[in-house]
């Protein structure tokens, strides 16, 4: 779907003024030069509250150009409210072409998921990040966490994983799973499911992370090593489901659980909406067409 190619009057290209964009680009350059390191930046007031993607939007606004093609997803879906709002925002202020097709986008802004379709060189993935500091919930002092990163004092990170195992028998962290970047910095990859962590490792695309409220930017240049933290006797593993996607039959994508009725029936569907649609268009189907077996009667 292409948007109308008129830019909104009274606003600079992509909403932010050029000096701000330069400032953000400088921060991005620093971030790319030091993979995984959180670079502070002078975040601006955006026309949306904190917690709604202001960091991601500022990063996108700083890098987007007239010829870019933008895709925006929220939890994998192009058509939720937030994704639609942000996509329209850039259509209005930058008059750029927008798309839902992963392979056609040059910039993809995402909240909490990495698309299933593998990204290529030349693409940029912009993550929306709430709390950039992986150690924040264990060590509330910013002065301490900065020192810990500077001195590579990451024992505390493993304390969190240890606690998980002692409480649940396994590492229970299922999203925002901390990872070691380029053998140096530990980062919070934003609340993406741990299922997506392996995709970050050696990804050909550039990955940028923007936290608006906390005012931090960090980055993974293409082909950066990203290793999720674990223990020798409790290695990192990703989620699995018992069923395939009910719509397209995909066996290895991240599935959302949809509750169908109050009798306990549910179905599992690809979180990445575009990925699922593509597969259906290509003729793949799932079990959604069959009658639900064992419909439970309420007592």
């Amino acid at each position, binding site marked *: 779907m292409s948007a109308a190619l008129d830019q909104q009057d009274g606003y600079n290209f992509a909403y932010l003024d050029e000096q701000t964009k330069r400032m953000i680009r400088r921060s991005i350059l620093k971030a790319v030069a030091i993979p995984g390191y959180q670079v502070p930046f002078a975040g601006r007031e955006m026309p949306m509250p904190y917690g709604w993607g202001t960091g991601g939007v500022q990063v996108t606004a700083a890098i987007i150009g007239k010829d870019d093609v933008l895709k925006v997803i929220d939890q994998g879906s192009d058509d939720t409210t937030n994704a639609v709002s942000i996509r329209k925002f850039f259509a209005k202020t930058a008059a750029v072409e927008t798309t839902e097709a992963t392979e056609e986008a040059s910039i993809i802004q995402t909240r909490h998921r990495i698309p299933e379709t593998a990204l290529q060189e030349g693409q940029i993935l912009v993550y929306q990040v709430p709390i950039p500091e992986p150690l924040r919930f*264990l060590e509330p002092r910013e002065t301490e966490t900065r*020192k810990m990163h*500077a*001195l590579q*004092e*990451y*024992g*505390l990170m*493993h*304390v*969190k994983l*240890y*606690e998980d*195992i*002692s*409480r649940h028998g396994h590492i229970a962290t299922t999203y925002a799973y901390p990872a070691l970047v380029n053998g140096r910095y530990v980062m919070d990859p934003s609340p993406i499911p741990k299922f997506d962590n392996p995709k970050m490792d050696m990804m050909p695309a550039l990955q940028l992370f923007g936290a608006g409220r906390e005012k931090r930017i960090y980055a993974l240049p293409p082909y950066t090593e990203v290793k999720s933290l674990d*223990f*020798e*006797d*409790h290695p990192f593993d990703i989620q699995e489901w018992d069923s395939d996607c009910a719509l397209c039959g995909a066996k290895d994508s991240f599935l959302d659980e949809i509750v169908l009725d109050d009798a306990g029936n549910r179905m599992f569907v690809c979180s990445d909406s575009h990925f699922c649609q593509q597969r259906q268009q290509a003729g793949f189907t799932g079990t959604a067409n069959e009658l639900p077996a064992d419909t439970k009667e309420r007592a």
Partner: protein
Amino acid sequence: MLSQKETLLSVNNVSVLYGERVGCQNVSFDLWPGEVLGIVGESGSGKSTLLNSISARIQPTSGSVTYNTRVDGQRDLYTEMNEPERRLLMRTDLAYVHQNPRDGLRMNVSAGANIGERLMAIGERHYGNIRNNAEQWLDKIEIDQNRLDDLPTTFSGGMQQRLQIARNLVTRPRLVFMDEPTGGLDVSVQARLLDLLRGLVRDLGLSVVIVTHDLAVARLLSHRLMVMQNGQVVESGLTDQVLDDPQHPYSQLLVSSILQT
């Protein structure tokens, strides 16, 4: 056990001034492996300030503190080490036991995680090993092993203090600093803790600098004693000598003030 040739810690004319206010002044002493040095004095005598400066936590205004590191020999803590090196030392070879155990523990993670943290900080990555190690330490500090996954908030004050000690000792430090470790504990709980400390000092060959206002604690635990008043060391010597034949007026006052039970 006491007859090593080289000093472990050398404090040379250390003064800590807060502007014009004297924290402590012109303090010098040597500490050998396996020795326990007690520092006694009233509140405001400067003993905690001194403790902080010799444990690499605050830089003295003048004077030097030299520590005998495992790998590089005698090093001045402030002029020959940078902050990362000091921090590493504080996590491995040195230990600091706070008066209030809440200051020395992470109250929001389990006992096992508290004990295991220093291990994880130096690169231990095997969950099973960390857990076993932590269990053994709970034994040593006389806490039931099945409290391993409990939060320290569910422990009594005495248990918290023992947990703090275990957390510090797990990396086998050679020098332990203690700031009134029995303050705030019941008398019977104190006795148990002191005995535990005595045993650990003996079994692990620790050197200890312990700050206390309680002379009975000093008598029980320390080989040597320093008496501080108004930031100065007014008397120092063997514990039994300072307590049985005190020379300085203030020492005599302290000793005569103990109530006999």
